[in-house]
């Protein structure tokens, strides 16, 4: 986990605690606290998802997440921003990523949270392997070709 003023990001193998993240982010200057949870979605019958497995380049992913949170905080004047991402096995229904932003007003909270999720999917060196009844496969995010980076 990395922290800076009003910022907290991290990778963790343990389940993500929504309430702890939200309580960390809430503060007297915040009129809006927005919590995004990405959860493991099940597939249709015949493609039932057994679990996801996340692999991360931790030494790079945490600094990348901190840089994104820092930029979001500056750009939208956030009070707080928190980004937590799971590693390892994540069961269906469990949360793989939590983004909590606290801002004076709601429009900044929505814009910052959506931007953080877009950039996380495009920039954070994290990979996902999906285990279904059909077998296992690495799943890439749409719209995030590695060519866009660098």
């Amino acid at each position: 986990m990395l922290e800076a003023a009003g910022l907290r990001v991290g990778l963790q193998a343990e389940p993500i605690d929504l309430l702890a993240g939200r309580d960390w982010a809430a503060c007297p200057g915040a009129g809006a606290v927005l919590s995004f949870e990405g959860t493991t979605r099940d597939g249709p019958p015949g493609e039932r998802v057994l679990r996801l497995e996340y692999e991360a380049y931790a030494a790079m992913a945490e600094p990348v997440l901190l840089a994104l949170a820092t930029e979001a905080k500056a750009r939208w004047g956030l009070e707080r921003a928190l980004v937590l991402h799971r590693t390892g096995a994540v069961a269906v229904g469990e949360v793989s990523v939590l983004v909590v932003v606290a801002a004076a007003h709601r429009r900044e909270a929505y814009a910052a949270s959506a931007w953080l999720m877009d950039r996380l999917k495009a920039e954070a060196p994290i990979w996902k392997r999906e285990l279904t009844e059909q077998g296992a496969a690495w799943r890439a995010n749409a719209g995030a070709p590695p060519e866009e980076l660098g």
Partner: protein
Amino acid sequence: MSENSVTVMFFAMLREQRGASEAQVTLEGPETVGALYARLFPPGAAGALPVAFAVNHAYVEAERLLVAGDEVAFIPPLGGG
């Protein structure tokens, strides 16, 4: 580890192909990160992927010249979130 080597990190499908998560690789004279990738995963060979490049934990262009001691990572299509 040779005096002119870099550490290369493999992730996801690249890690599975290599059967290793990292390796020490000796540079062949002045070598860019793109050239190193083409050497380790020849274009057209099974499993050659479009990748991004990182050196010392930051994204870089394919033209970035490597120096001894760099930590190089090939970044296959991302799946976070």
